[in-house]
C-alpha cells in the first residue's frame, strides 16, 4: 500500500503533526505493524518537495514533530486520482500455500495432512478475528472483515483442493 497516498488521505480532514499522522495511520491501517517515525518523516519531506503538502505552522520548541502539515490543492487532486483508479487485481499465484501444496504433491508426500493442518490454523485465526469484531469499533470491524474474507477464500481453495486431491496427485506428477 502506498504510505504517501494514505498519509495524504489522512491530511484531507485537516492539518496534523507528523506524530499525529503516524498514530492515525497505525490505528486505522496498521495496528499490527506500526510505521517507523522515520518513514513518516521522509514521506512528508517527499510530499513537501512535490508540492502535495505544505507546512502549516510550527509550534514552539524544536524537532520535526512540532511542524504541522496541510494538504495542498495539488495534493487533493492527487488523492482524487488515486482513489478513482482501480488497483490491479492480484490473483495471488505466488502464494506460499499454493507452492507448498504443489511441492507436497510433486514429491509424493501427499497434501492431505498439510491441508488439514492449514485449515485448522486458518479457522483458529478466523475465530480470533470474529471475536475481536464483536465489541470493536467500525473501523476495526472493517479490518477484521477484510482479513476474514481473504482467509475464507484460502479455505475454499483448500477445500476444493482436498476434494480433488486424488486427481491432482496423478496430474502433478506427470
Amino acid at each position, binding site marked *: 500500500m502506498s504510505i504517501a497516498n494514505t498519509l495524504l488521505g489522512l491530511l484531507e480532514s485537516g492539518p496534523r503533526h507528523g506524530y499525529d499522522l503516524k498514530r492515525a495511520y497505525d490505528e486505522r491501517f496498521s495496528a499490527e505493524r506500526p510505521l517507523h517515525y522515520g518513514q513518516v518523516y521522509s514521506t512528508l519531506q517527499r510530499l513537501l518537495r512535490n508540492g502535495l503538502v505544505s507546512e502549516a505552522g510550527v509550534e514552539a520548541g524544536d524537532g520535526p514533530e512540532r511542524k504541522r502539515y496541510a494538504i495542498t490543492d495539488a495534493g487533493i487532486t492527487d488523492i482524487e486520482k488515486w482513489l478513482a483508479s482501480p488497483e490491479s487485481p492480484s490473483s495471488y499465484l505466488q502464494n506460499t500455500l499454493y507452492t507448498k501444496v504443489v511441492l507436497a504433491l510433486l514429491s509424493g508426500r501427499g497434501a492431505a495432512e498439510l491441508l488439514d493442518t492449514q485449515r485448522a490454523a*486458518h*479457522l*483458529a485465526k*478466523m*475465530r480470533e*478475528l470474529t471475536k475481536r469484531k*464483536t465489541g470493536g469499533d467500525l473501523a476495526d470491524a472493517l479490518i477484521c472483515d477484510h482479513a476474514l474474507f481473504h*482467509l475464507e477464500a484460502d479455505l475454499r481453495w483448500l477445500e476444493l483442493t482436498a476434494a480433488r486431491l486424488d486427481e491432482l496427485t496423478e496430474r502433478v506428477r506427470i
Partner: protein
Amino acid sequence: MTGATETVLEAVELHKSFGETTALHGASVTVRAGEVLAVLGPSGSGKSTLLHCMAGILLPDAGTVSYRGIDLAALAGHRRSALRRDEFGFVFQFGQLVPELSCVENVALPLRLAGQRRKAAERIAREWLARLDVDTVAGKRPGEVSGGQGQRVAVARAMVTRPKVVFADEPTGALDSLNSERVLELLVAAARDTNAAVVLVTHETRVAAFSDRDITVRDGKVRQTEFSR
C-alpha cells in the same frame, strides 16, 4: 465458562442408510454444555442426517444417541417428541415458521404446545422478538417479512423454551453477509446467555468462525479437528 466440560449430548458410532445410500458410517460426536459446535463438511457428506439423528428426529440404524445419559432410541415416540419440544430448539434454512400464524404466534407456539396460556406465551414471545431486534414484525405473517427478519423470528422461536441444545442447519444459508452475521451474533449471544449448546451445521467457514470448536463430516464419518479456543 463453568460446566463447559459436561457432556449434554453424545452420539456414538451412528450408522444410517436411505435405501442404497449410506449417509452415516460410524459417526461419533460429543456436545458439551453451553458450547457452540460447528459441523463442517462437503455437500452430501451426512451433516443434516447427523443433526437429525442427534436431535431424535431420525433414528439411526445402529449406534446410540444419548441426551444427558438418556438413550433417545429407548424412549417411546411421544416421550421423544416431548423431549425435543422441551429441551431442544431448531433453526433451519427455510420453511420452519407456520405461514398462517403471525410472527409472535409462531414464537409463542412451542410454549403453547407445552401447555402455557396464550397471554403468558405471547408476552414471553414478544420479549424474545425484542431481544432479536424484530419486535416490529410481531403482527406480520412470515410471508410478509424479509429473509433476515424471518430467520431472527426463527431464532426467537428456537430459544423461547430456553432449550439446552439448539440445532441449526445452515441457519444463514439464504442470507447476505451482513444479515448472516447479525443472525449468528444474536443466536450465539442468546445461547451464551441461557447456557444452551449450539450444533451449527454449515459449509461456510465464516459462519463456523462463530463456534468454539469444529468437527468435519466426510463420507458419513466425523473427523475431530478439535481446534478449540
